[in-house]
């Protein structure tokens, strides 16, 4: 497999959850792909469906949730029709996941070493000693000193930042092709966040993995993303190469997000920071039109009807979901000072 090969392909992924009021369409028709060595960032506010998307990829959704897709392949293997036992073979093996809460994601009853060796022993025929050696190697790779003695420690003896590093090392034990990191730094101190992100970027390059990074923090995205997917209310509203999306935000929601960030040099002193009034709409039952229409200052009657498809932006590898023409929205962007 060469650099640039597609590892993950997702077409029309939907996640529905039955709730008392009807069917909640948490994720609607997602399309994206991840290549070797590429970092894809999925951005969106809480409740937009980004975490559910990551769980859907790993098939770790809650029992009630219904996952559907036209296509979901990992290295060409179709994940949709797999038996659970085969899926379990893939999890932790070709595909790994790092979660948001390092404080509670490790089992308090077993040592770090035990939990790390366990994942390798599960997927490979190696001896305990070999597993131990690999664990030490990876702990050092993630920047943990005195790795050998750390193996005998319990999770509660480590800080949050260290635990997250252990999680990363643990998920690398079997050399996965794809890592999904669901808000890996949200629960950590600001100073540690930068370290962990840098670490992920380095590891990704060195091991030539695909990385899906899920976050609500645009600063993180700016730092590490190759490509960006902006989600709102279960849909992709804008996607493309990171520089394209950041420098020429075409969807009103993306523009609103960028308005919220003060940029030294651009943002005038004493100016109000942007905010997006309104709340996320209910996703239960029949859905029509653009989900963002309620809160969009440019909304028109046709925004609330039918299904709005993704359309090409002003350049290659840049798409957005809006009825407005790209040059119209780019004018808005310039007005708002985000382009």
């Amino acid at each position, binding site marked *: 497999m060469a650099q640039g090969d597609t590892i993950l392909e997702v077409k029309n992924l939907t996640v529905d959850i039955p709730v008392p009021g009807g069917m909640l369409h948490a994720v609607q028709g997602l399309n994206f792909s991840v290549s070797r060595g590429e970092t894809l960032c999925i951005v969106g506010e809480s409740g937009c469906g980004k975490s559910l998307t990551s769980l859907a990829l*790993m098939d*770790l959704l809650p029992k009630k949730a219904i996952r559907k897709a036209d296509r979901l392949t990992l290295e060409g293997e179709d994940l949709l029709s797999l038996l659970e036992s085969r899926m*379990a*073979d*893939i*999890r*932790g*093996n070709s595909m*790994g*996941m790092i*979660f948001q*809460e390092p404080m*509670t*994601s*490790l*089992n*308090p*009853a*077993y040592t770090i070493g035990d939990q790390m060796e*366990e*994942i390798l022993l*599960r*997927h490979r025929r190696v001896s305990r000693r070999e597993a131990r050696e690999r664990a030490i190697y990876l702990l050092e790779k993630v920047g943990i000193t005195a790795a050998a003695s750390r193996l005998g420690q*319990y999770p*509660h*003896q480590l800080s949050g930042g260290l635990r997250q590093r252990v*999680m990363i090392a*643990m*998920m690398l034990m079997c050399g996965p092709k794809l890592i999904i990191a669901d808000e890996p730094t949200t629960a950590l101190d600001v100073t540690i966040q930068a370290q962990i992100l840098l670490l992920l970027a380095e590891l990704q390059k060195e091991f030539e993995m695909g990385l899906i990074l899920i976050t609500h923090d645009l600063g993180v995205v700016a730092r590490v993303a190759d490509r960006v997917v902006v989600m709102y209310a279960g849909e992709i509203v804008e996607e493309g190469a990171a520089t394209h999306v950041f420098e020429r935000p075409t969807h009103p929601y993306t523009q609103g997000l960028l308005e919220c960030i003060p940029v030294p040099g651009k943002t005038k002193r004493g100016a109000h920071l942007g905010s997006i009034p309104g709340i996320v709409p209910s996703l239960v039952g029949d859905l029509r039109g653009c989900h963002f229409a309620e809160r969009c200052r440019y909304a028109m009657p046709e925004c609330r009807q039918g299904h709005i498809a993704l359309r090409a932006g002003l350049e290659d590898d840049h798409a957005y979901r809006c009825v407005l023409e790209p040059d119209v929205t780019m004018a808005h962007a310039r007005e708002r000072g985000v382009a």
Partner: protein
Amino acid sequence: MLVYALKRLGVAGLVALTVSFLSFSLIYVSGDPAFALAGETATEADIENIRRVYGFDRPIVVQYLDWLGSALTGDFGHSNYLNTDVASVIFDRLPVTMTLGACALAFALALAIPLGVLAAMRPNTLLDRFALTVAVIGQAMPSFWFALIMIFWLGITWRLLPITGTASWLNFIMPSVALGYYITPAVMRLTRAGMMEVLSSDYIRTARAKGLKPVRVLFKHALRNAIIPVVALSAVQFGFMLGGSIVIETIFAINGLGFLAWESIQRGDLPMMQAIVLVLACFYIVLTFVADLLNAFLDPRIRVS
């Protein structure tokens, strides 16, 4: 961990001391023990005599310390009725009660833990409701009645099991079930609650994300954490059963400590009563101490800090 153990040991010792005093004071519950011993036709002189001989004329604290001192050396006094020393009788009958208690606990755990785990894995399904129904019904049946029903069906009607004595292991089946089913609901609920909480925890999600096989996730990761409070509860419940076996032993004519206690109460054999209460209480105290230690030992967050 050592400091923790020593602290608990200290508390246990104090409690044991207090309980010993309370056990001792049983003798004064009915008023003047000299009266009780002397009988109805006794004269003032007789009563005075008895007081002097048994030492009831000494201050109560002195009597207590004397009794306690002897107890610590294994001398619980002399039984008025069995014409032998109390200690030997007690330690003769103790193993039977312990066996009964252990069997009852084993039965309860064998029933409650699997039910609790299954119910937690499938909450709000038929299985879950079945388990909870079993729990509710178990808590509502008086153990002596349940024992009689078992005797009626299993012992008399179908003649499957022996109903009295301790001749063979078969004799222990019905008493163990009668004694053990009463704590089954509590253990089952605790297991279920613990498992439900653990199964929805982040580290179980991580275990699944690692691709571990479901059985491994269930036992190595989930149960290992959920079982900690259950272990502690079981140790304590064992203590309860040692003390609560009196009814069951009486029904099945099992020659254990409970039956002995019953006989002593009927005969008014005070030294025996005092000693039994003290021995059972001390067992309970030791068991709670062991439960605390187990709790701490099983949870690395307490053991290694």
